[in-house]
């Protein structure tokens, strides 16, 4: 029971990270209709920028930890969203309206490019950092089993909840969100009605990248070690989350992220840790076969 509870807490933390990345996939897919394959690497860039900012500020040694973390967060969001914007501007916009495979290939190219860019400029070795937020609550202390809810996990979950509320406010209440939803429904019609489609798509990439950068920062704090290759697997799992929740649906992405976190954590806890990625990919395959539109998505209507 204690073990189960502990795994539940762990999976919630992991799920928050996946959910934040999955939103980027799902929004881009909803509006542009392409898989932004490089999104996982944008997340990786976000984690590197946070790492650099943390070392720069000496986070962990200084006194004002919350303030320092806020600065790190803002720096990561700023730099990573510029990456997201540039990615769209350079690699995807010239091919908008071209056939679908073309955009997927440039996305693959961008993913390879970003990975190797970081490898060349930051080195291929893994980067460890000291734990920044330590301690936590413990409860159910009977015998050897302890359930702990660390401050770090609380921090990650709270940040995720805050970001998601801001984000859903933007999507549902502001003019920006309205134009985004309009573009999602019909790109051409939105253009006819005077919505600046290019700008809306750019902003979509910026929002996706900034959420991914926050996930990147959490990843650094939670695992304490990153390298240039983390974007690939994390990205695919987050994409799986987006598909599982129903691609194009934003609440679906969050639910999917939590589910993937749950599956991965419990599989490693109760079965074999070696095959946890196989389990996630297996889920992806099964979902796509039996319910390709996911949990909250709508079935696509076939048109001739």
């Amino acid at each position, binding site marked *: 029971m204690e073990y189960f509870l502990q795994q539940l807490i762990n999976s919630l933390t992991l799920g928050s990270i996946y959910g934040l990345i999955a939103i980027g996939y799902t929004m881009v897919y909803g509006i542009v209709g*392409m*898989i932004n394959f490089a999104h996982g690497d944008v997340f990786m*860039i976000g984690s*590197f920028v946070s*790492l*650099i*900012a943390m*070392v*720069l500020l000496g986070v962990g040694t200084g006194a004002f930890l919350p303030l320092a973390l806020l600065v790190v967060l803002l720096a990561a969001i*700023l*730099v990573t969203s*510029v990456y997201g*914007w*540039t990615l769209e501007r*350079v*690699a995807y916009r010239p*091919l908008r309206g*071209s*056939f679908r*495979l*073309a955009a*997927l*290939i*440039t996305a*693959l*190219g*961008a*993913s*390879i*490019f*970003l*990975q*190797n*860019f*970081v*490898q*060349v*400029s*930051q*080195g291929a070795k893994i*980067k*460890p*950092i000291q734990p920044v937020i330590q301690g936590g609550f413990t409860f159910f202390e009977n015998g050897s089993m302890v359930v702990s809810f660390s401050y770090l996990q609380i921090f990650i979950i709270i940040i995720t909840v805050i970001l998601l509320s801001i984000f859903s406010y933007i999507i549902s209440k502001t003019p920006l969100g309205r134009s985004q939803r309009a573009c999602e429904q019909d790109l051409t019609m939105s253009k006819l009605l005077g919505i600046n489609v290019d700008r809306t798509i750019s902003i979509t990439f910026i929002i996706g990248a900034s959420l991914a950068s926050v996930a990147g920062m959490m990843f650094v704090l939670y695992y304490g070690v990153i390298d240039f290759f983390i974007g*690939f697997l994390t990205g*695919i799992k987050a*994409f*799986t989350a987006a*598909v599982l929740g129903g691609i194009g649906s934003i609440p679906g992405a969050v639910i999917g992220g939590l589910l993937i976190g749950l599956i991965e954590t419990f599989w490693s806890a109760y079965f074999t840790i*070696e*095959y946890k990625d*196989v389990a996630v*990919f*297996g889920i*992806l*395959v099964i979902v*796509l*076969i039996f319910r*390709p539109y996911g949990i909250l998505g709508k079935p696509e209507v*076939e048109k*001739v």
Partner: protein
Amino acid sequence: MSSKENFSLIIKDLIFTGLIATVLLIPIVGFRTEISTVDSTGLIFNYNFITAFFVVAFIVGIRFLFHIFWFSKIQKKPQENSEKNKKKFLKKLNFYLGVAAAVIAFTLPFMPFANRYIVDVATLVLTYVMLGWGLNIVVGLAGLLDLGYVAFFAVGAYSYALLATTFDLSFWICLPLAGILAAFAGILLGFPVLRLRGDYLAIVTLGFGEIIRLILLNWYEFTGGPDGISRIPRPSFFGFPFARKSEDTTFHELFGLEYSTMHRIIFLYYLILILALITNFFTMKIRNLPVGRAWEALREDETACRAIGINPTNTKLTAFAIGAMFGGFAGSFFATRQGFISPESFTFIESAIILAIVVLGGMGSQIGVVIASILLIGSTELFRELEQFRMLAFGLAMIIIMILKPRGLLANREPSILLNKKNE
């Protein structure tokens, strides 16, 4: 617009580009993190601002050149060639290029400049050509986006390695077996997922590719896990081994030649050349058979195909299985050439490279695959000294070629057969 106004616009754009590039590059390039040598736990910085500055200046310079040579002319460019002339020209070009490539390929090992290194690189390029042609059946002809093609390559390689090391079978028996096993893998994986379309199929095949790699990595008793399989038997010349001394008659004794290590390398080169040409020949022929026509029809319009009674699942499965079979052949060739295989050779990046070759070459174009392989594999192989910049340039090239020629270098999406148009 006056030229002065134009000029100030360009300056503004350049400043903007510079700003963006600075934000992108200063954090990642400028602050290189290194593990501290003092206490080996903390990270310290190794400042690289000069490099970052030069890269920013380089990007701004490129943008400036764009303004001078590209943007100003983009509107004036007239559409010269009529579609028809272009197609005729492309067809002719395809033919001559094909003949030239075949002649060069067959004579290459005996050229005066050919040394071991060149033949090795050519063998590698040909392996990718064969994989490209195999994948072209799936992606180019049937229009199924497969991001896990390397899985079949892996199945072929491991089939050959395991059959040859455990049962002591010769290369020529294992080769067809490996192909058949890979085709079975194709059917097995293809059956549940082929109802999916486009991007979804791509992601599921990617997932399958990764699953196969993870199984190879973790099933230690069967595959040797991360250690891989070593001492895979080298191929013999139809029973005559390439060795200095052997109990059987060796290759050089058979032909009365001086012993040389080049014999085996050249033999391997011709082996992959023949295998690749078989793939090519097969593809050309099957395009004219009903099943090939059905693939092309499916690629163009699945709903219409269903309406005229083509079974999409079976048709797609054949494409998947045949593509997988050629991947398996290439895999067993890879295993016998290397003598050692491990899951590291079958990562996702390989699938991406093969797909890039097919798409950059122009989907469905056979000669395009050759050109793309030479460009991507040959050129990156030549720049091996710049090891770490190789893949960086590779990713960049993928983006640039795609933007300039979204349909590939030699686009050929013409169905093999068309009804005559009424007004012709």
